[in-house]
Structure formats: C-alpha cells, structure tokens
C-alpha cells in the first residue's frame, strides 16, 4: 500500500510507534521512515545517541526510546520530513505533536488550526503551541500542536483553516454552524434526523448531502461512538430538486 499511496498503513506504523509505556512517560520521536535509501542525517544529528549507528547507510533508522528525550533536533534534519515527536504526557486530555512544516505562511502561536492525518484528511482541531524556526531548523520550521490525545498518532500535518471552529458552516443550504450542531448534541439530540428537525440542517435543496455525513462525524466525536455504529439519516425523494411544472409533464427541468 505504502508504495502505491505513499500513506503508511497501521501495519507499517506498528514497527515504528514506541510502546505505550514509553509514550506515557513524555516526548519521544516517532520515525515514520519506511524506505531503504542511502540517508542518515537523523543519526548524525542526534546528540544523545538515541538513533543507532547505521551498519549500512541504506538501513532504516532504529531508535533507542530510552535514550531519546524528544528534543526534536532530528525533525528538521530529516530530508524526508518523516520524523515527529509525540508527547502523550502533555496534559490530561491533550498530546503535543511536533511536526516539520515547510509551507508559508506559518501560523501564529496560540492559533487554532486543523490537524490533518497522513492522507491529508481533517481529523481534529489543533492549537499551535510553539513554532521553532531558528538557525538550527535550517528552514524546516517545527510546529508544536496540542491535539486531543486520541489523535496523537493520527495528526501528521495541519491546515491553517480552522475547520472545527464553532463558526464553520456545516449546512450550507440552511447556514447552520458547527457551533449550533454542537449545542444540539450537548442538549441530547442523538441522531442526524433529530438535529435536522430542530435545526433545519439538511432540509435545503441539497437534502443533507454535505451536512449529513459531517453531522454524523460530529455526533461520533462528541459522544465517543464510531460513525459506522450511528443511525443513518432518512433519505427522502427526490434525488435532485424538480420543478412542479415538470411533474405534470411537458416541461424541462433545466
């Protein structure tokens, strides 16, 4: 899969993600390097000797998780942008992820952005805690993001758009914001159909094509369920809006 998509699978990741006990102790590097290529700056940059010496320069790096203190020097030194530092002891509910980010503009510290997974799909809201962009980073800035703990092994990049802000419009036809949807979920509305009836989300011309799945994701997030286990909303005819005149025949529906 990795060869055709460029996206690491769970099986690939199992070989590089440190054990849970180590993760809970504090920051540690996660080296998502799966390709045998002649490259070793991670080894040469690590002052603590946590990345073992390469017998063959084509070898993949091997991390001694007990020596690694998560300083993050290797992040900017990796030409493949394959190294991250994850701190699962950051707070009760959040993990801190340090990631390389070679795009302009850089976000402001304190800003909310959207955490993206390895495929570039938005997964959660993230807060920019720190940006390291000094000489040592050599034009590969390192961004520290605080994310909900369950996404510590999902988020590997970010979008500067704050998709998960309360102000994001979820239902474009009826202009219902994510904040409103969240409020209804907090008040106990359990399904898309219930939220549709009280908020009008999904009642417009597109009939919930966009907002239906988004609301399901938000219900799953807020209630700790899987989207696959949620009740699918009722879809009603017609598939596309149709003129009353056309229903009686003789008129074209442009």
């Amino acid at each position: 899969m990795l060869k055709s998509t460029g996206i690491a699978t769970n099986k690939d990741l199992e070989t590089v993600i440190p054990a849970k006990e180590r993760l809970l102790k504090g920051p540690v590097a996660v080296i998502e390097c799966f390709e045998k290529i002649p490259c070793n700056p991670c080894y040469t940059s690590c002052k603590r000797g946590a990345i073992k010496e390469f017998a063959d320069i084509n070898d993949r790096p091997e991390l001694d998780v007990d020596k690694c203190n998560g300083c993050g020097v290797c992040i900017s030194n990796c030409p493949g942008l394959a190294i991250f530092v994850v701190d699962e002891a950051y707070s009760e509910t959040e993990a801190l992820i340090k990631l390389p980010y070679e795009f302009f503009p850089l976000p402001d510290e304190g800003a909310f952005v959207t955490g993206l997974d390895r495929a570039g799909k938005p997964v959660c809201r993230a807060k920019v805690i720190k940006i390291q962009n000094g000489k040592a980073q050599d034009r590969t800035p390192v961004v520290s993001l605080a994310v909900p703990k369950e996404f510590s092994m999902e988020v590997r990049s970010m979008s500067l758009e704050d998709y998960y802000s309360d102000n994001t419009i979820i239902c474009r036809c009826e202009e219902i914001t994510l904040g409103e949807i969240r409020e209804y979920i907090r008040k106990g509305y359990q399904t898309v159909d219930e939220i549709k009836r009280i908020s009008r989300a999904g009642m417009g011309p597109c009939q919930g094509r966009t907002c239906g799945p988004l609301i399901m994701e938000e219900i799953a997030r807020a209630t700790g369920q899987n989207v696959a286990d949620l009740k699918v909303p009722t879809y009603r005819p017609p598939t596309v809006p149709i003129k009353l005149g056309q229903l009686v025949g003789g008129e074209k529906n442009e």
Partner: protein
Amino acid sequence: MNKTASAVIIGGGISGCAIAYNLAKKGMKDIVILEKEYLCSGATGRCGAGIRMQWGTEMNCKLAKYSVEFFETANEVLEYEYDIGFKQGGYLIIAATEKEVTQFKKNVALQNSLGIPSKFITPLEAKEIVPHMDETKIIGATFNPKDGHLDPFHTTQAYANAAKRLGVEIMTYTEVTGIKVENGKIKGVQTDKGFISTPVVVNAAGGHSQQIGEMVGINLPIFSERHQILVTEAVEPMQGPMFMSFSQNIYCQQTPHGSFIMGRGDPNEPRDLRVTSGWEFLEEMAKTCIKFLPPLKDLRMVRQWSGLYNISPDRQPIYGTVKDAEGFYLACGYSGHGFMFGPVTGVVMAETILGETPTIPIHMLGIDRFEKGELLLEPSVV
C-alpha cells in the same frame, strides 16, 4: 429498569407532551412519556403545520380557538429558549362548488358567533390576498386572518422542555409492548426497557392509537391512513395565507422560512401504517397546485414524505375515559388535526385525568358517542 409512575403517557408528539406538561403544572408528580423513537418522529413532525379556526362544527371551532390563543403566547408561557415560529398569515379557504358556498356561509356564521373573525369574500377579494392565484377557478372563499403556520418540532420541544423542568421524565427510543389490566383497572405498561407500574395510561400514540387500544382489549373505532406532502425550495415571501380547498383536495402554504409546503389526501389510500412516498401523489399534487396557483409551476420541490392521519368516524378528536379499563384515557382520532389542537388537548385531558371540570366541555367527544350514534360530522377536512 422497573419503576413506578403516577401516569404514563404513550406518544412523544404534541399531544403527549402537552398533556404531560399540563398534568405536571397542576402538581402531579412522577409522570413518564414513552416515545418509540424521538420527539415528533410520528404524526406531529410529519404534519402540514397549518393552524386554523375555520371549522364547520362548534366543537372544533372552540378547540381550535383555544389553541390559537395559546399559540399566540406560547413562547412566553412555556419559557421557550428558541421560537415556535407562529406566523398568522391567515387561511384562504376557497369554494369551488355551489354546495361549498352554502356550507361556508353557514360555517362563517357559526365561527363569527364564537368570536372567530372569518368572513366570506368574492373571488376578486381573494385575489387581493393571494395575487398569484387564478380567481376564475373559484366562486368564493372564506378568509380568517388569525389562522396560520407553526413549527411542529419547536412547539413540541417547547412543551417537552417545560414539562421536563416540572419533573416529567421523557423516555425516547422506548417502545410500549403491552399494557397490564387487572379487574378492569390499569396496572402498568410493559416496554422494551422494563415494566412501569402505573394506575393511569394515556393513549396519545397518534397513528398507532389503534394498536395501543388493542393492548387493553379495546377496538377503537378509528383507523390510520397515509397522507402525503411535499416541500419546495425556499423563495422570497409571496403568499401570506394558507390556500386550501376541501372539494379540490389541496392545502398549500408558504412557511415563514420561504418554502412552500403542500399536501392532499387520496380517496383510494388503504388503511394501514405505511409512511412511504409515492410518485402518483407528486403528479396529482402538482396538477392541483398549478391549476389554482399557476406561477408555482417554476418552484422546485426538494422533498416529499408522509405521515398518518388517525381518523375517527366524525373527523373530530376522541377524548376521555373508556368503560372497560379504569385509568385508560384516550387522546386520539384527530383526523389530521392533532397538532393544531395540541394546547387544548393538553388542558382538557389533564383536567379529565385529575377529575376536574374541563375548560371546554368535552363529554360529547367521548368514545361512547359512536355507540350512541351522536355524531357531529366535521365537513371541513382535506
């Protein structure tokens, strides 16, 4: 989960929520509402959301007037945080036959005598109220400016929230599977989540009232049938009142949101519990709508659905007790008008259950009227 309640109300629509609210307001404790799905998932949430006082029987006029006057102040009385969305744009009920003209003149006289400000008007006067109508297709109309439109979801939620604040427990996704009766008295309700001991059960199950009646061994003289409805895209406000015809079988109203909502009955509809949608309805609906309101041919319909009318022999509600099961109360058979009667249902049913004299005398709406043959047939229904 096994528990005890002073009253169990079956049905989480407007009737059930309004009855629970009124009982709690009068001081009753430990009231439980049982709802198979979620609030408004049945007939209330599927209705056309029209509210009118223009009826052909004194009883329906009184029930409707009480309800309209409540809706006018419901946001404040129920202390609702959102808005129930009551728009009083009136109802324009058109007469297409001479028989209707005669009936409507009688209706208006009756309505006026009860303080309902309806009037009989000419086709041209009707066109002034709904400028896009084809007035040549009608021979008269009645208009009451105080009729209108109301959001069923928010209105039911307003009642439910107020009831919860008074201690009512609302159990959604809880299905009634049986009712225990011993020696002619109600003992409790069996649900898929456990048994609730109670001396009082209210049948406010809308389209499923017949099935609830069977659980206590009563064959209610009611039946349910599907009524279909469609809604269009939202457009700028262009139609103030509901446009309605009994003989032509149409109701069509622009909601405060801008969409047009319209429906009609089908004389060949089978009596069952289906809430599916069919294409035949779309064609007939569009034909009737375009005949009277030609410019609406360019509106796009975005959705169709259906709901159950729970129909009684005289098209008036059935309220009150039953002979063979003490503690079993009926609030059903609204024949398509349960939503607009919600407030009065709540009040008179709570009073009946608590042994008080009902605000509006409803003894003639008891189930025994069918045995006695004392029917007052409502002529004004779609």
